């Protein structure tokens, strides 16, 4: 395999993280179940009235996705930090940017993609129409990578700190707000019969921004944390 060293580094990171995740399947599934349980709690707390459930569905599903994505952030760098692998990755001649990109991609595939796939099923619980389910699926498909990218900054900043889990929430949740607004907004507008594309375009713009800037900020944060 004579690929460019940067490309092979990226591929190595992704396959390694995927392999590690596969060996610990329970971790992955717990994020997914967390999402499903949180979403299912809302009808129990609010009551079974379908019209009300329909109108809160976009917000509920999206907030649950936010929380689930935040829970899986702790695993992004922590294990590699503890056994010293992360330090070795910092020493490689390849840019740290790629390491972060690879890890974020693997994390998204492992913890967020299953959630995106199951979301339409969860939406059925809330009586969403089929075209709305499609919008829900795509809004999560575009939106959850942004969450992983922004979250990687928070995970890198809080590496090795006491109370890291709660702290990550404080740092990252306010930054998630635009994603929540546009993501839930797309589903919302599809429910009331407005074209959801405007929100999806804005979400895509945020995705592009976060792909470009977040790994850079996260690698700066990693260098600070590992100094």
């Amino acid at each position: 395999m004579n690929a460019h060293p940067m490309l092979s580094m990226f591929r190595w990171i992704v396959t390694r993280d995927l392999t590690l995740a596969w060996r610990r399947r329970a971790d992955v599934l717990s994020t997914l179940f967390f999402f499903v349980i949180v979403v299912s709690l809302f009808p129990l707390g609010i009551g079974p009235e379908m019209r009300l459930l329909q109108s809160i569905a976009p917000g509920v599903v999206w907030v649950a996705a936010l929380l689930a994505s935040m829970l899986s952030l702790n695993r992004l760098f922590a294990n590699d930090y503890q056994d010293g692998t992360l330090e070795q990755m910092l020493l490689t001649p390849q840019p740290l940017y790629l390491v972060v990109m690879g890890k974020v991609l693997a994390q998204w595939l492992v913890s967020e993609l299953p959630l995106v796939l199951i979301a339409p099923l969860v939406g059925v619980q809330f009586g969403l129409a089929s075209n709305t389910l499609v919008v829900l699926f795509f809004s999560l498909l575009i939106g959850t990578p942004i969450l992983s990218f922004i979250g990687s900054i928070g995970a890198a900043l809080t590496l090795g700190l006491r109370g890291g889990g709660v702290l990550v929430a404080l740092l990252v949740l306010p930054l998630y707000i635009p994603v929540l607004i546009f993501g839930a907004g797309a589903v919302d507008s599809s429910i009331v019969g407005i074209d959801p594309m405007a929100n999806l375009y804005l979400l895509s713009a945020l995705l592009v921004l976060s792909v470009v800037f977040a790994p850079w900020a996260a690698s700066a944060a990693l260098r600070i944390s590992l100094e």
Partner: protein
Amino acid sequence: MNLYKYASPAAFYPLAGRLIPWFAIPAALLFIAGLYIGFFIAPTDFQQGEAYRIMFIHVPAAWMGMFLYVLMAVYAAIGWAFNARLSSMMASSIAITGALFTFLSLATGSLWGKPTWGTWWVWDARLTSTLILMFLYIGFISLQAAIDEPRRADRAGAVLAIVGVINVPIIYYSVQWWNTLHQGATIRILGKPTIAPTMLAAMLTMLAACWLYSIAVSLARVRCIIREREQRADWINEGAGA
């Protein structure tokens, strides 16, 4: 005179001590003047009655909250980029004042909202984005508080502040669009096309007072931070901190 000399905490510490009264005393005088104009000279608003007078602290507090966040990020970025310790200390010092002003603007806003709008809180775009600004301050302060090593705390705070500053306009516009998309706002912050000159004078006096107060308090707080971090340095134990 070489101004860069004052980038050193040891040189800045006594300078800050000398500067504080120059900002604190005018701040106090302007507060008194502003409150006097606001309470006794400015006319009663024909729509809102006397309740509008809380604006004289609310508006400057809201401005300061936003402005200090940017200022904090600038200081933090300079401290990170040029490895200037004092600049990072200023950022940590400003963060607290900024958070307090943001809180003050939320608190006075809801006190004003109750008699005027009939409710303590509305999900108005401006209120919501101020609330989020408050969250960003809390994130910055608690991140720095969680890190024991001061230089790591400075740099980590700088990354977060810069990311926050890039996000502030995105958050602001997303909240504004969200607000207009959701429903036509039933209640709006009153667009005041014209404002009586005395009201404006009171507002500007209070704004100047808030500015001077922020400077004085940040300098006082940065002196505490310097004392804490440099406690093992010789100069501080020799009683140089006049």
